[in-house]
């Protein structure tokens, strides 16, 4: 009735009750067939090994790892390398994999690649970004081969990783070394420049200003002192000269009675003139003191003019044999004084020259400072770069050493490749289950087909659906037509007084 009218749950149940055996037979036979198939299909064994990725043993804060690429990326590149033809071909030849005779080497390599499985372990406990390890599996037609090849691939991975890391670390170190050499050359060049500069602009460099200023002030005071000493010495000299001339005059007076020495008059005049200048500075010309002083000056000048100019013997320090002892002493004094004055004058000139140099330095220091700064900046940059590189190189050297001692991150084989006891394919249980499912499906299909083809009415619902007529009675199966033996005995037992069949009980007519 399936497909001819809408069926209710009850209908489906009755169909199942009626045809359960169609469902049951394939559901029993097919699992057995599936199970039997597992013996015919070529078995495939999977050997698996677990490789753990161990963190480096020295904390990162002490030694930074040189290889910082994400493990998954490294794994991928490693996988590509390992699955390359050059790596796989020796393995295939050694273990004679997939040697069916018909396959070319390329096909065999492809097959081998397909049968190698590399699956990372995803773990929550390990690092968040990485994976603490990975499984390597190999599928082959017999267990031993699977195990051997799996081990081979695993060792390839481990050694590849080690050499890879070591090479990477060594490469880093080498690179850093070359960089450091460059940096050092640069730094030396900068240092030479700086030294030269410092030599060139010695004293004008920034930082020398204070000492320059100090020197300036001291030189200034020295200059002042020298000038004052010179003035004093000049005075002394002039005084000594006057004294000498006085002595000579006295000598000559004692001989020639010379007029009073004009020297005193001169001195007097000088004093008066000084007085006058002082007074005029303070007072007007009508001031009585000024007037008196001016008059005195006049008188003195007149006196001096009146006095016959005594032909004064030239004052010389040259001793004369005629000179007395004191004069000679005087002369000697005068000579010493003259020498002292000359010396002082030289000193003064030297100080002044020095002063000029220092003034020059102070003036030119800003320009020098600019250049100096740029040079020192370059130098410090080069220095910093060099230091940094040096630091890195040291780190790298340590890391390389770490790798060499196998203390860095490395692959540790956790489980050696196992010898698979049962084939991974075909799984007996899966085949049996699949057979069961197929059997059920087939059974259901057959039932559905039969039900579709079976258009016989079976219950009131069918009759109503197709004829819209009510069903007045439902008569159970009474086995009429072909009386059943058991039923007959039942009836016989039930009512032995009634005959069965069509034989008359009492043949009245004969």
């Amino acid at each position, binding site marked *: 009735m399936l497909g*001819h009218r809408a069926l209710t749950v009850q209908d489906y149940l*009755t169909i199942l009750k*009626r045809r359960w055996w169609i469902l049951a037979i394939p559901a029993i036979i097919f699992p057995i067939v599936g199970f039997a198939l597992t013996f015919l299909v070529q078995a495939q064994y999977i050997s698996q090994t677990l490789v753990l990725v161990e963190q480096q043993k020295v904390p990162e804060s002490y030694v930074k790892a040189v290889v910082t690429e994400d493990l998954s990326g490294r794994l991928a590149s490693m996988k590509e390398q390992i699955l390359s033809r050059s790596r796989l071909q020796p393995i295939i030849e050694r273990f004679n994999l997939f040697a069916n005779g018909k396959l070319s080497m390329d096909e065999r390599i492809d097959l081998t690649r397909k049968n190698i499985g590399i699956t990372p372990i995803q773990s929550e406990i390990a690092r968040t970004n990485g994976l603490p390890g990975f499984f390597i599996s190999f599928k082959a037609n017999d267990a031993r081969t699977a195990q051997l090849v799996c081990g081979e691939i695993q060792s390839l991975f481990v050694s590849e990783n080690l050499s890879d890391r070591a090479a990477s670390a060594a490469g880093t170190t080498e690179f850093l070394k070359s960089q450091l050499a460059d940096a050092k050359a640069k730094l030396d060049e900068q240092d030479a420049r700086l030294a030269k500069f410092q030599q060139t602009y010695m004293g004008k460099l920034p930082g020398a200003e204070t000492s320059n200023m100090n020197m300036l002030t001291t030189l200034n005071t020295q200059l002042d002192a020298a000038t004052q000493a010179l003035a004093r010495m000049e005075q002394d000299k002039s005084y000594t000269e006057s004294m000498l001339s006085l002595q000579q005059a006295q000598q000559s007076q004692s001989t020639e009675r010379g007029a009073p020495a004009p020297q005193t008059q001169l001195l007097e005049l000088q004093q008066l003139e000084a007085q006058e200048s002082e007074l005029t500075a303070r007072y007007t010309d009508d001031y009585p003191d000024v007037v008196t002083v001016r008059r005195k000056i006049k008188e003195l000048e007149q006196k001096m003019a009146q006095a016959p100019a005594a032909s004064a013997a030239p004052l010389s320090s040259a001793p004369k044999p005629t000179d007395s002892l004191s004069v000679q002493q005087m002369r000697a004094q005068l000579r010493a004084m003259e020498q002292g004055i000359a010396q002082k004058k030289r000193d003064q000139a030297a100080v002044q020259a020095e002063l000029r140099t220092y003034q020059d330095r102070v003036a030119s220091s800003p320009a020098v400072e600019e250049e100096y700064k740029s040079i020192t900046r370059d130098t410090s940059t080069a220095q910093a770069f060099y230091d940094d590189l040096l630091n890195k190189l040291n780190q790298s050297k340590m890391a390389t050493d770490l790798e060499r001692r196998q203390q860095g991150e490395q692959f540790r084989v956790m489980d050696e490749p196992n010898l698979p006891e049962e084939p991974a394919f075909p799984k007996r249980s899966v085949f049996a289950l699949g057979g069961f499912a197929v059997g059920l499906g087939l059974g259901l299909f057959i039932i559905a087909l039969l039900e579709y083809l079976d*258009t*016989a*009415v*079976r*219950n*009131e619902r*069918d*009759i109503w659906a*197709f*004829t819209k*007529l*009510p*069903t*007045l*009675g*439902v*008569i*159970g*199966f*009474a*086995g*009429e*037509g072909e*009386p059943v033996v058991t*039923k*007959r005995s039942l*009836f016989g037992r*039930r*009512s032995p*007084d*009634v*005959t*069965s*069949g*069509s*034989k*008359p*009980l*009492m*043949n*009245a*007519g*004969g």
Partner: protein
Amino acid sequence: MSRIYEALQKAESERKLERREPEPRTPEQSVHSAIYATAVATAEEEQSSFTSAVEPYVETRPSPVQPPVRVDPNALDVSKIPVRPWALSLERLPSLLERGPAVEQFRSLRSRIFELRDITPLKSIMVTSGLPQEGKSFISTNLALSLARHKSSKVLLIDGDMRRYTLHQFLGCESHPGLADYLAGKASLAEVMQRSEPFEGMTSGTAAITQNLTFIAGGNGGDKAADLSGSPRFEELIRLAAPHFDWIIVDSSPVLPVSDAVNLARACDGVLLVARSGQTKFPVAQRAQSELKASNILGFVLNAVQEAPQVGSYYGYDAAKP
């Protein structure tokens, strides 16, 4: 409860029938018809083989007051119905049992028919189906017996399948003279009817049922069956028999291969279609229905259902344990 209900129904229907009684029953009336006259010889020849003594037919129903009316020469004289030895086949007639699922199933079918009778007048019911071997005869016989369970419920069972009549096997009696003989005019109505004589060892239940059952066998229709089925005498038979019986059950041939049943159906008040569960295809059922669209199809009876509803279980009947 159902029995009380059925009794009430019965009383009701009887009252209706008495009101509708078309003609008075005239006992002690001999049959003198032309048709009968032609068939006397063969009938008598056949009668010679019957050695049973005719017993007076006892009317259980109170005879109504007989008004002076015109007497039909062909009127049925029930007292003339011969009594013959039957051997009821219990295997084929489960409705005869004291209890059991079949008894209950036929009883519920009977109740439905009573309900239908309440809606429209219903006396003669033809049982047919689309194809042979669907259980027409089984249903009709058991239905007749089930209807005859009522006291004072007179049932006439007619084997209308004149080509392959089988009802006599159910009842364990002779197959002729039967309907074909009557339709061919070879026998009178009373001659083709037969009733069971009580036999030794018959249970009281069975006896009470067979008392109320009158049977017309198939008779030897042969190839003429199709022509005979179209005969107006069948309608006359129903008309004549109707006053004397509460129910007339007509078994018939299947409708699809032959047209006999369609012809007979015109004379009946209603048609019961039989479908055999798991065997009758629904297109067959539909075609049978369309063949009979001229008649009043009461509904279907679903036969040979493997898991029929246990109608009697409510009353504590156990089908397995009698």
